């Protein structure tokens, strides 16, 4: 469905290939860090800086078991052969000579995980030696827990209410009481400004806003002025940047990629903005906007994708502070029959989950559960 393809390779690492050990007395402990470094060095040596740079985007050692010496390495589909050959050419990890052997390749981590489980079970059955309690605990700890994204579908939410909700969720996420969360919603007609308070980009007086049925809000997010309204899909990911391993820039780029992937479902060729024009564009027309706030490493605010909003509202602002470019929508860019908004929102959420490599997406359908709790705090 969505075109962000990876390959997961299950590799076995033979340490000091002359010997054959399981568990004790191994010369080097395999960790994600030392394996990842050894493989990257090999790519650099064999394929140069350019080769390394092109592989690095999706390269990730997902799982390492130092007891059975199995590891799962992720790479993008386009680069996986390069990564595979580099791994075969790895001569040593730390000071220990090693040989990598590929056991399985698959397109999703679940299949790879199943293959790994099978290999490990076979190994233990063959070795004829039980694992001590200590070793079992060690192993269970090393198994990566699947990354889950919790999605709340909230329908149309008043902007101030959504701000309060996000504040609450950010502190919950910071305290690790909730997993990475995503809010999928729309707003009634609302203009919002970012931290720089660029209200010179609002072209009608504030007093007139009520007459056109819109509100204005000042926020702490990055970015310039923008409009939110019905038929515009909004996603507010509340994620811990540290747990997903992104910095601010790579996070914003991933949000752009999510919208680009989504556009391609309808045959719309979108692209990321040039320097200083963050967002998603079709030609010279902006279809998706981004404005993010990161507080103590937790993200809030997020992205807004125009499905079929009333474009007249955009005439009252200089959108995102860029004067000579138009705003467009999915409706305007494709002749394809658009499905219901519910389906469209789901597709957008799926694209984001894929780009951010979530294993599981759990959808919470009862918005009153979190929206009503806000009343209590008032």
């Amino acid at each position, binding site marked *: 469905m969505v075109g962000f393809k990876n390959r997961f390779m299950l590799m076995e690492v033979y340490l000091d290939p002359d010997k054959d050990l399981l568990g004790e007395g191994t010369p080097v402990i395999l960790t994600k860090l030392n394996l990842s470094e050894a493989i990257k060095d090999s790519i650099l040596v064999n394929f140069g800086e350019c080769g*390394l740079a092109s592989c690095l985007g999706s390269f990730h050692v997902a799982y390492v078991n130092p007891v059975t010496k199995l590891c799962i390495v992720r790479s993008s589909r386009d680069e996986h052969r390069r990564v595979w050959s580099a791994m075969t050419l790895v001569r040593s990890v730390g000071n220990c000579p090693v040989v990598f052997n590929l056991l399985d390749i698959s397109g999703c981590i679940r299949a790879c995980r199943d293959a790994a489980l099978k290999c490990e079970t076979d190994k233990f059955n063959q070795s004829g030696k039980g694992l001590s309690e200590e070793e079992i605990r060690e192993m269970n700890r090393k198994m990566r827990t699947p990354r889950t994204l919790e999605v709340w579908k909230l329908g149309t939410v008043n902007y101030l209410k959504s701000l309060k909700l996000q504040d609450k969720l950010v502190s919950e996420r910071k305290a690790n009481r909730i997993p990475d969360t995503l809010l999928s919603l729309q707003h009634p007609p609302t203009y919002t400004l970012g931290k720089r308070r660029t209200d010179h980009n609002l072209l009608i007086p504030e007093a007139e806003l009520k007459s056109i049925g819109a509100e204005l809000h000042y926020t702490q997010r990055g970015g310039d002025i923008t409009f939110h309204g019905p038929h515009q899909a909004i996603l507010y990911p509340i994620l811990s940047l*540290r747990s997903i391993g992104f910095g601010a*820039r790579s996070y914003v780029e991933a949000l752009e990629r999510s919208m680009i992937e989504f556009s391609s479902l309808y045959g719309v060729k979108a692209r990321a903005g040039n320097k200083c024009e963050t967002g998603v564009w079709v030609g010279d027309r902006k279809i998706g906007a981004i404005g993010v706030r990161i507080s103590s490493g937790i993200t809030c605010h997020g992205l807004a994708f125009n499905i079929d909003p009333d474009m007249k509202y955009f005439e009252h602002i200089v959108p995102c502070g860029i004067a000579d470019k138009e705003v467009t929508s999915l409706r305007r860019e494709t002749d394809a029959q658009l499905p219901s908004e519910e389906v469209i929102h789901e597709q957008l959420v799926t694209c984001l989950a894929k780009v951010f490599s979530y294993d599981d997406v759990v959808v919470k359908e009862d918005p009153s559960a979190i929206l009503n709790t806000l009343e209590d705090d008032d």
Partner: protein
Amino acid sequence: MALRMWASSTANALKLSSSASKSHLLPAFSISRCFSSVLEGLKYANSHEWVKHEGSVATIGISDHAQDHLGEVVFVELPEEKSSVSKEKNFGAVESVKATSEILSPISGEVIEVNTKLADSPGLINSSPYEEGWMIKVKPSNPAELESLMGPKEYTKFCEEEDAAH
């Protein structure tokens, strides 16, 4: 775009070409896998801010690793002079690529000077994170807090582990 950035950082780290951006940094830096520089003589927080302690004044800014992960900074919000900052509490924010990120103070104290150049040239944080891109000067209220910060080698390892973990 990202590809070129990585390729040129790699080239720079391996000294294979002379790209201008990092050439003016002081000689004492360590090459790390994260390809950003870590300066000797400074202390670092795990939220990527640095502190330079000289007598009764501590200068604070964000590290090369941080500015690299942020992207081009377009706006900086700093506290007023005479306001106080607390360890691990936010004292300001930087905006880059449509994302505002909070900056946490590595130590507690009173703000005695603020870098006013950043209002007009926020890009100084990217081009010179340890020199011209300093953010605030603070009179530390509790010098012992500096002990709990990381030294350059520890910080380099910390960055490497953060980058390699994903």
